[in-house]
């Protein structure tokens, strides 16, 4: 095995989802006879084969018998994939239905499934561009150049040599051809290495081991497995679509303002603006939560308990009501579920002594059948031995305590106190600066230590009061 065979040979490991490319290539060849080209005048040179967006879209509409909007979308995809490139605004890869000018890309630079745009080719291109522009590359290109110089350093001599040779060989051609070649290469690399804050249509998933373009031979075994699968599918119980769709609609209407894809998250989405105020404001131990977070707690008990800050708030309310044992049991059961296997027996024993034994200090009120099952299971404790009891307790809390919590002064107060941050409005220069000043955030060990100290404090506070000690203290006084 050599380095070349160990490296992924791109013909063997296929990139997925590009079946459309063969069909698009056929369409591009047909388009050559259909769309009329004109000439472009640049100072003294005239370059032929320039087409307007209008003509392309008209041809597509005619050929595919679709509407103008669909043809425009199709045309935009052709530009985004790199089959056609715009001459005027070369960074914006859209097809406009007007007189904006485009040109066809040469087949070498078409997107293909087999040949991926190599980094060494990109380095050669950047070096050539460096020569042409006399050192004034765009900032994102300069960043790529520095990065490639660092990790392709062993090939750097080759890259410089090849770049100068290609530049000189390019000069041998006539002036209009040189201009066209520059445009072509630039368009290819804008598609394959898009500038900052632009989206590339060439994003595809991980590599696959089978060729998605080749046909799979269906054998007898495949049919047997298909039969089994369909028989099982028929026997499954199904929900009526009206019911499931109704549930989906309800979910969407409740959550749509909280989804960062659909509604802007306040103050600003850290992945967009590189400013992490949103994360610091929504941390675990924050004093005052945000309005959106508090609103989310009112959706269901599950949301309230999943958010640890919400759980704290709920526990404050329960302490006022002196009905904390359900919550404590639920938390203890969670700890058993998620804890280490070695601590399970000891945890199960403490839970039994504290919550389930008759006359226990924090006895929970669950029905007789569940209690019997749980106590029997605790003889041989496993992770999910308290599942039935936990669900019962959860339902009790949901049906009764949760609604009282939502109407309580604790919740209303936190709703009033909750923060509503102003949305950020960064200019592009500030965005660049934000990108450079990204902070690494709080170390997870510090967060873990904070969590542990909180847990210790809570354990001391909630330890069952020793009645005898209290009585003796009062007697002594």
């Amino acid at each position, binding site marked *: 095995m050599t380095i070349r065979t160990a490296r992924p040979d791109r013909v063997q490991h296929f990139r997925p989802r590009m079946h459309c490319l063969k069909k698009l290539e056929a369409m591009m*060849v047909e388009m050559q006879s259909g769309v009329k080209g004109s000439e472009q005048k640049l100072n003294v040179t005239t370059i032929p084969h320039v087409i307007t967006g209008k003509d392309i879209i008209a041809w597509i509409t005619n050929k595919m018998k679709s509407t103008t909007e669909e043809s425009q979308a199709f045309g935009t995809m052709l530009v985004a994939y790199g089959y056609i490139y715009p001459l005027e605004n070369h960074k914006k890869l859209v097809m406009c239905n007007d007189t904006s000018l485009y040109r*066809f890309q*040469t087949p*070498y630079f078409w997107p293909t499934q087999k040949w991926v745009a190599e980094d060494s080719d990109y380095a050669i291109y950047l070096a050539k561009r460096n020569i042409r522009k006399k050192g004034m590359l765009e900032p994102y290109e300069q960043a790529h150049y520095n990065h490639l110089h660092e990790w392709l350093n*062993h*090939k750097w001599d080759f890259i410089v040599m090849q770049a*100068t040779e290609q530049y000189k060989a390019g000069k*041998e051609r006539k002036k209009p051809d040189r201009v066209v070649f520059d445009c072509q290469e630039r368009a290819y690399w804008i598609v394959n290495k898009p500038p900052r804050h632009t989206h590339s249509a060439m994003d595809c998933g991980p590599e696959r081991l089978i060729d998605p373009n080749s046909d799979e031979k269906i054998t007898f075994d495949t049919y047997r497995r298909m039969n089994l699968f369909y028989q099982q599918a028929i026997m499954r119980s199904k929900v009526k679509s009206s019911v499931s769709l109704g549930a989906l609609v309800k979910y969407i209407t409740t959550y749509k303002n909280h989804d960062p894809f659909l509604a802007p998250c306040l103050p600003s989405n850290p992945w967009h603006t590189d400013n992490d105020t949103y994360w610091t404001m929504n941390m675990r131990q924050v004093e005052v939560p945000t309005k959106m977070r508090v609103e989310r707690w009112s959706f269901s008990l599950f949301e309230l308990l999943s958010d640890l800050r919400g759980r704290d708030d709920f526990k404050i309310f329960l302490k006022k009501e002196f009905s904390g044992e359900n919550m404590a049991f639920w938390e203890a059961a969670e700890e058993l579920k998620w804890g280490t296997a070695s601590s399970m027996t000891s945890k199960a024993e403490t839970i039994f002594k504290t919550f389930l034994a008759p006359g226990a200090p924090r006895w929970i009120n669950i029905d007789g059948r569940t209690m019997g099952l749980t106590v029997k299971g605790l003889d041989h404790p496993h992770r999910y031995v308290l599942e039935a009891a936990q669900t019962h307790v959860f339902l009790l809390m949901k049906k009764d305590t949760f609604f009282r919590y939502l109407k309580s002064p604790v919740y209303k107060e936190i709703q009033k106190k909750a923060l509503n941050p102003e949305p950020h409005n960064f200019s592009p220069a500030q965005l660049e600066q934000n990108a450079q000043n990204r902070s690494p955030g709080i170390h997870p060990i510090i967060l873990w230590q904070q969590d542990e100290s909180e847990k210790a404090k809570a354990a001391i506070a909630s330890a069952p009061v020793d009645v005898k000690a209290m009585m003796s203290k009062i007697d002594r006084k």
Partner: protein
Amino acid sequence: MGKDECKTMLDALNKVTACYRHLVIALGSTSDSQNLREELKKTRKKAQELAVANRTKLTSLLKDKSISKEDRAEYERLWVLFSSSMELLEVDMKRSLEIGQDFPTKVPTRHFIQTGMTGSTTTVAARAMSVQNMKYEADSNIDTVDLRDLQTEITQVSQMMEEMEMKVQVAPWAVEAKQEAGAELKSNMSVGNSSVGVISICEEEPKEEEGGGSRDSGIASVCAVFVFFVIIAVAGVLGYLVVNMS
């Protein structure tokens, strides 16, 4: 010396690879033609000859156990240059096979892509072959015949590269490049790093060895400027005399 021979041969291979790439980019477009196919064939043959010559030379140099450490580092660097050139050449050959199959020259209903390039690539091919003018002598079915040859040649090249890797133990990532970032902005690059830097327009500072070279050429350019001004002064004096006389 063996090193200089190697360097000149690698230079030549580099030039041919660059020209081959230019020619392959023109395939399938409106500057494609029978001539282009012939140019591709000739450039390819030349590239292969150079490749074989380079390989034998470099393998013999690297197999020699009695060379010093700096020499060995230098030969490894040349080896990396050679193998990178060959990789590029192999990829370009495979792509030219694909595109050549998709765009045959003789089918009248098949259209070439109107890319805007209309000129011929004769000059590029002439540069690759190091001749003044290209002679075209192939028959009309060159594209189909050539494609078959191309397939065999591609397998040959792949085999050669595998053999190369097996025979010569060179770790490509361990090689340190001699050029710094922005070195392409100085002209007259060659394999040997003794380039005469003309005017470096980049922001980076040139290395010390290039500083010496640029000092010499600086003197040359100062002399040129001086001569220019002398000529202007003479022209001015003559003009004044002419005006005086009339």
